């Protein structure tokens, strides 16, 4: 369980998060949505402890995350970002292996190599093993990064693992976006994983999320299931657009915008 209590974060005088409190349960996919500038990215970074809040507490499984060391945290928490740029020639395998860095001191062991093999196979990037990362397309790169992130969170029998997704779909085409979301959902379903992500596309959120948090102007406006949160009035007041809601399949939801 990941809990955030009364989080406030400022840059200079401008508040980016005000009094944000929310809990994220394991085995579910939690997605944060909201208009530009709402504070979504900031919230993810605070939850992942890249940023320290000016007020409030974040707890991972009841333990104040401020007390945990960087190295220890890196073994249980990973973040998949929008894009990763590399300034030097790096092979795909070397990059994926970085996911294992928190887990070995000097050189990777045979166990680490095996994990890399498995994770690369899972994301279908084994054929890119010796290719330069910079020569890959956007979609291919994100698959590689996802492989790296998963390698970082590879199950080791210890406590809960935390996966954060900071707008990972931005540079992907529609096929890859859906493909990714499916894989993320698969991973999020594990009993000892807490998955929290930020997406822009409300339809994707509606389709894949178990729990949606709607942020606007540094505050939480609503938190609940997709149908609870994504109502016409709310979307209108927060995003300024008029959706038509169309139910689909098993308690699914489609939003159509004029």
């Amino acid at each position, binding site marked *: 369980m990941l809990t955030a209590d009364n989080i406030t974060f400022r840059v200079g005088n401008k508040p980016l998060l005000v009094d944000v409190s929310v809990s994220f349960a394991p085995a579910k996919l939690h997605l944060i949505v909201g208009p530009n500038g709402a504070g979504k990215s900031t919230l993810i970074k605070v939850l992942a402890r*890249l940023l320290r809040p000016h007020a409030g507490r974040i707890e991972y499984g009841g333990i104040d995350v401020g007390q945990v060391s*960087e190295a220890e945290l*890196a073994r249980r928490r990973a973040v998949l970002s929008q894009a*990763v*740029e590399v*300034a*030097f020639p790096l092979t795909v395998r070397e990059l994926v292996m*970085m996911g294992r860095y928190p887990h070995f001191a000097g050189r990777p062991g045979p166990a680490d190599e095996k994990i890399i093999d498995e994770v690369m196979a899972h994301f279908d990037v084994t054929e890119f093993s*010796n290719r330069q990362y910079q020569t890959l397309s956007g979609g291919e790169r994100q698959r590689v990064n996802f492989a790296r992130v998963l390698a*970082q969170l590879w199950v080791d029998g210890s406590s809960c693992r935390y996966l954060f997704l900071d707008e990972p779909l931005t540079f992907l085409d529609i096929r890859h976006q859906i493909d990714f979301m499916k894989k993320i959902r698969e991973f999020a379903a594990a009993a000892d994983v807490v998955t929290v992500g930020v997406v822009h596309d409300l339809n994707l959120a509606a389709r894949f999320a178990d729990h949606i948090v709607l942020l606007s102007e540094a505050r939480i406006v609503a938190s609940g299931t997709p149908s609870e949160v994504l109502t016409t009035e709310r979307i209108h007041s927060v995003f300024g657009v008029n959706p038509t809601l169309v139910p689909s399949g098993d308690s699914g939801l489609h939003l159509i915008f004029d």
Partner: protein
Amino acid sequence: MTKQNRSRRVLLFALVVVTLLVLAASIRFGAIDFSTVEITRALVSLLPGHPEPTLDQRILLELRLPRAILCLLVGASLGVGGTLMQALFRNPIVEPGLVGTSSGAAFGAALFFVLGGVLHIGASLWSLPIAACAGGVVSTYLVFLLARSREDGRASIVMLLLTGLAVNALFMSAIGFLSYIARDPQARSITFWSLGTLSGASWKAVEIVTVSIIAGTLIALRYAKQLNALMIGEEEATYLGVNVNRLKWIILSVNVVIVAVATAFTGVISFVGLIVPHILRMIGGADNRFLIAGSALTGATLLTLADLIARLSVRPAELPIGIVTSAVGVPVFIFLLRRRQYVF
């Protein structure tokens, strides 16, 4: 072991062999050429019970040998300094000189030349290197201090680069001012020091630089994995458990010490720190453990070759070594820039 790791090991081994060959050439050739027999005799004369060394043997033992070895060590220092800077700044066009270390060291030396004459400071062998080292440390610390953001005390890499540029400009104009007010002989010393030379090599210098390069390289190797993580970005590195701020301080300090100590004994030598990591990355990829070890060896080799050219081309006179490294470094650098295969 992966194919890449295997080829890196072969490469490092080959580099060791090349370095030793170049060292041998450096000991043999110069204004005076020594044959292998003469070198052996000179070394043997050091053993107790053998006759005192002749003048030629003393030249070999007291001038040539320390110079050849110091050249290796300084080359290694500059090479490793370059790799560390490029890893830290995530930018392949970066040199130790960019964070102010070289210009600070040069300023320290210039100050020593000018004030030393006025205040008659004890002209011991150490005064100059200490002054240069102090200058390098002050300028680098200044860069780091000025580059910190007011909010969270962190220093982003872009800020470091820009502040480094500004501080460099400051120190270079300070050196210009010192040259201006200096009396003629001192002004000449300043100019020659800025071009770099190994003619002042001594065993004491070898001792000190050995300590600095070995300690520096060992520390750097320990942080090689973290530097690798830094390649994918400061944020990503933090997510992988790296304390980025602390890493920056440590690597920057190591860089300052290594480069300032080397510069203190030889004057400013440019381009080695810039092109050595490039060459290595081209042939073996960007893993920092490989790069750090490889750049020590490659830097040593390249500087020794440059010194051979400096000593042989106009013998018995010598060219300042900075001229040779620039003359070779600039075309190599332009060539590297134009290779399409090498992706930045």
